[in-house]
């Protein structure tokens, strides 16, 4: 028990299970017995979820999930291409400027993207891809900026030309970190997705349902949707983690198992 509060303590598998389940049960107890009248009880949330499911929440979730995967894949490809392009000085100012666009508001950009997009799906996708890409690019540029000089020296010493150096050091050498950046940005994409689906309601999606429930102040339904998104996000996070473990086993060899 005292190890739970010891700095940098490494717990065995059983202790981790006790800790996690203990905290889950505690959270449910606090939630169940909370005196706040605004907080819907677990039973109410479960009942709201059943209703929503019967009204087609599953289909809305699939719409949102597909849109999110599309956006993350496209944003990853665009951002990686732009981040890797920074090896050439010509692209550095352009990429720096693009990454600064993360300060722009999504609501303000809707009009511009509406003029470009030909369908509701395209509009949502382009809004999402844009908003994820600017953050993805910032994180990925940071990763590439912090590659130790000695890695470049080693590649050059092995007679590699600068294109090969880029492939070995910048692309292959940092591949494991790409998964970490995807993980962070895919989560952010879910956050933005509900906002985008709230703005562009043509195709429906979980964001539209969430906005509707919010609008009518159905807190139990809002909670049910949020918890569903949370669980889906956790599953997505685990899947990306497994992809990293499979593609880059070396990345886990020096990590302290906590």
């Amino acid at each position: 028990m005292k190890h739970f509060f010891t700095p940098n303590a490494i717990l065995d598998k059983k202790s981790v299970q006790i800790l996690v389940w203990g905290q889950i049960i505690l959270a449910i107890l606090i939630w169940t017995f909370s005196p706040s009248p605004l907080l819907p009880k677990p039973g109410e949330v479960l009942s709201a979820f059943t209703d929503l499911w019967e009204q087609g929440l599953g289909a809305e979730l699939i719409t949102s999930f597909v849109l999110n995967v599309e956006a993350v894949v496209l944003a990853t490809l665009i951002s990686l291409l732009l981040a890797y392009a920074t090896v050439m000085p010509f692209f550095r100012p352009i990429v720096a400027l693009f990454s600064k666009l993360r300060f722009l508001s999504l609501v303000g950009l809707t009009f511009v993207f509406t003029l470009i997009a030909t369908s509701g799906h395209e509009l949502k996708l382009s809004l999402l891809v844009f908003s994820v890409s600017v953050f993805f690019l910032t994180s990925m540029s940071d990763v590439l900026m912090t590659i130790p000089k000695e890695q470049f020296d080693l590649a050059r010493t092995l007679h590699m030309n600068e294109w090969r150096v880029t492939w070995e050091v910048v692309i292959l050498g940092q591949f494991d970190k790409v998964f970490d950046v995807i993980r962070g940005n895919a989560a952010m994409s879910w956050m933005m997705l509900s906002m985008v689906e709230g703005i562009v309601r043509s195709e429906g999606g979980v964001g539209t349902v969430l906005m509707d429930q919010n609008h009518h102040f159905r807190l139990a339904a809002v909670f049910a949707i949020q918890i569903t998104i949370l669980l889906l996000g956790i599953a997505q996070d685990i899947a990306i983690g497994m992809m990293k473990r499979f593609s880059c086993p070396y990345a886990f060899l020096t990590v302290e198992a906590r």
Partner: protein
Amino acid sequence: MIVPYTYRDTLLKIDHLSLEYNGRQILRDVCAEIKDVYIPGRVTGQIIALLGPSGRGKTQLFRRMAGLDRPTSGQVLIADQKGFHPVRTGEVGVVAQSYPLFAHRTIMGNLMLAALAHEPDAKIAKATVVAGLENFKLEDKADLYPCQLSGGQRQRVAILQMLICREPFILLDEPFASLDMINIEVACETISHAANLNEINTFIITTHDVSAAVAIADHIWCLGFERDLNGNPISGARIVETYDLLARGLCYEPGIITSDKAMSTIREIKERFRTL
């Protein structure tokens, strides 16, 4: 007893090399030469130890010798069939202090990169790597990743990588730093073994471990500041002293490092080291 030896061709020359950084003189008019040491009946490479206290520009000189960065003036020249040419990046192997290897490749993958740099046939390249791994007693490490090796093993892989890359000139930055006494001996053996694989193999080692330098090198260059008439250091380090350990009979004799003359040389260099 002094082993009979002669000097043959000059292999590498540092020609009036100077370096300034942000208006500060780091290196000043550094000149040095490495000649092929020839001992009848045996293959002998060259090992030069570049000694100097911290902050004297050893690593900076090292990077210019490797062609990784350019000096402000002067040059490093490498011998070729027509005479000499300025060093090109990749022409001099480098083993940096932390023994960098590509973390995303296994030991076999790292060494294959070096082998394929010269040998387009993957089968022949792999045979070279396998032979190298056996020679350096690393055959059971081929499928491991660099982070799974000890410091000494990483050092051997890094040296082997440069040898497989067919570099006769290899620079080692502080190979004895953070090694204990036993591992310093192992590192010395590895470096000597690798240097003596080929007549023109030349290892240049930066270190501030005087005993290890005397144990392994045939020449020692001391990098430090010259002094003005008042004894104040003149900015910009130079090679202010050289020691020919071959001429002193301190090379190629088993157990010579424990002899009185070796001890006296170590003491002499340590004394000089204090004023660098």
